[in-house]
């Protein structure tokens, strides 16, 4: 499981970085999204990988912390997703404005010579 997850994060990050260095705005925004997926998965994993473990304590039974998933990274990743989503949406609007003002979808607002 570790191998699959870590290589998944790696592939997300690598493709994200590559797309981000491309000259078209759409590629850049896709790259940023992929990079944020990689980061969000990474945050999630910092709570260690666990199967079938709840993050919320069940008080009806005796509590053994080892059987629970760490709830903190889950809440962190939720916050990060929300913030990332909002800023990406904002960025999309900016790119549309740039496209409208410059008539080009190049990140510099003009076609390369």
């Amino acid at each position, binding site marked *: 499981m570790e191998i699959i997850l870590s290589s998944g994060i790696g592939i997300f990050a690598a493709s994200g970085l590559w797309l981000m260095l491309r000259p078209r705005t759409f590629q850049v925004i896709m790259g940023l999204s992929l990079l944020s997926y990689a980061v969000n998965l990474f945050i999630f*994993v910092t709570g260690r990988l666990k199967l079938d473990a709840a993050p919320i304590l069940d008080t009806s039974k005796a509590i053994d912390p080892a059987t629970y998933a760490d709830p903190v990274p889950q809440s962190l990743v939720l916050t990060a997703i929300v913030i990332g989503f909002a800023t990406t949406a904002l960025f999309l609007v900016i790119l549309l404005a740039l496209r409208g003002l410059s008539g080009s979808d190049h*990140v510099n607002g003009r076609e390369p010579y």
Partner: protein
Amino acid sequence: MIAAFLHHIMVLPVILPLITGALLLFIREHSRRLKSALALVSTGFVALIAAILIYRAQNLAPQADVYNLGNWPAPFAIVFVLDRLSAVFLLMAALIAFCALIYVTAHWDRLGAHFYSLSQFFLVGINGVFLTGDIFNLFVFFEVMLAASYALLMHGSGLARVRAGAHYVVINLVASSCFLLGAACIYGGSGTLNMADLASRLALLPEDTVLICQIGMGFLGIAFLIKVGMWPLGFWVPATYSAAAAPVGALLSITGKVGFYVILRLSLLLLENDATGLHAAICQILFYGGLITLIVGFTGILASQNLSRLAANSVLASTGIVLAAMGLDHPALTAITVYYILSSTFALAAFFLLIEPVERNQDIAADVLAVTMEVYGEDEEEEEDEIGFYIPATVAILGACFTLCAILLIGMPPLSGFIAKFMMITGLFWPQGPARAYILPNMQSWLFIIFLALAGFAQLIAMTRSGIRLFWTSLETYVPKVQISEIIPIAALLAFCFTISLAAEPVMRYLDSMAAEIYVPANYIHSVLGGAVEKGE
């Protein structure tokens, strides 16, 4: 009763602008008077509270004031921490925001929607960064600040602003990803995000876990250095700052200082007692990175063909000076660095506000031509016989403000820019204070002194050149119409510089004790965790 009240006003710098900003959204855009009045009252209150908090931090020192949000105990929930360092930055940010908001009432608020709300949200983010004691919460406040700054940067729209804005947003989104990676590494390694808890745990962690935390700190460092604009992460700075509208430029000049604050806070808190050599390495990076930033900055200053570029490159130069001084890592120098940050931020904010009125009615092509003509030596224009040369009052006032800004940025006597640079150099020779024996500075210090002087000289050349071009030209075509609400904030910002020059002694006494305090992380840790540390060990 009063003590409890003073304790609780600590959250107001975050809560008050948040409520005001939200309320302002419901007021119609064309009732600008009301909007500006509300925003000014809120920002004024924040400034007042920040002043009270400075006194409070001073009284409580070396303890920091800790506010448990939701009254949950410290390492488990988010805390706000107020000490002398955060109080100083709070006051600085509030004063600059207040001046920028006065300036906006002239006509800038008509350029786009929701300026006042955005400025309030911007203030929420900045104040939150200064107050929070939790790394993830720091990220959230950073994002609040940045989201507002994206929109502020594009206030007034136009191709140049949107293009600069798009680049600024991409760079900051990448920086935010770095920040998150760093925070995740730190949590994965240490199991905590509370700064005080983290600082106390770092020493107890096994070696491989410490390594993960240190990688995390590296990511955080990259994120903050992008925000500060250190070379090679700061190529966005000139384009962004020079594209912003004047009051936005003044507000943006605070964002860089937020980066300085976080670097000071975290590097001293987490790495002061570090045995792995990471702290020394970071100091080296900061020092040489700072020096190169300074060189890039003053080269840019000399090459600038208009005032906005000049101002943007001056931001880079002062960033370089601050980073290099931080890299020298010395308590005496840290206090002076904060003094320099105060002085240069006020001066740069005043300069950003001044540019637009000065350049009003001037066409940009003439500027470019003037610089090109100087390069090719074709400066003999037709000789005008100037009989009786009169300077209109507006031009005289603008000229005076420009001269004062120049004096502050160059670091000429008698204003605070000079005092700061003079103290930096004497601090290197007499690290124990002037009464003790002096030491011969090492190679790094010499490099720093040389480039400090060179930067001042470059600034002198560039400012003189543009001053001559702007104020000694023939005046028939050029008498800008400037409103009183544009002059007042510039004068106020310069007055703050006067104040810290005249009151340099008490200000420095405050900053010296502040530096001594933040160099002992135990103060901060004990204030936040109380007895928990002793119990844990």
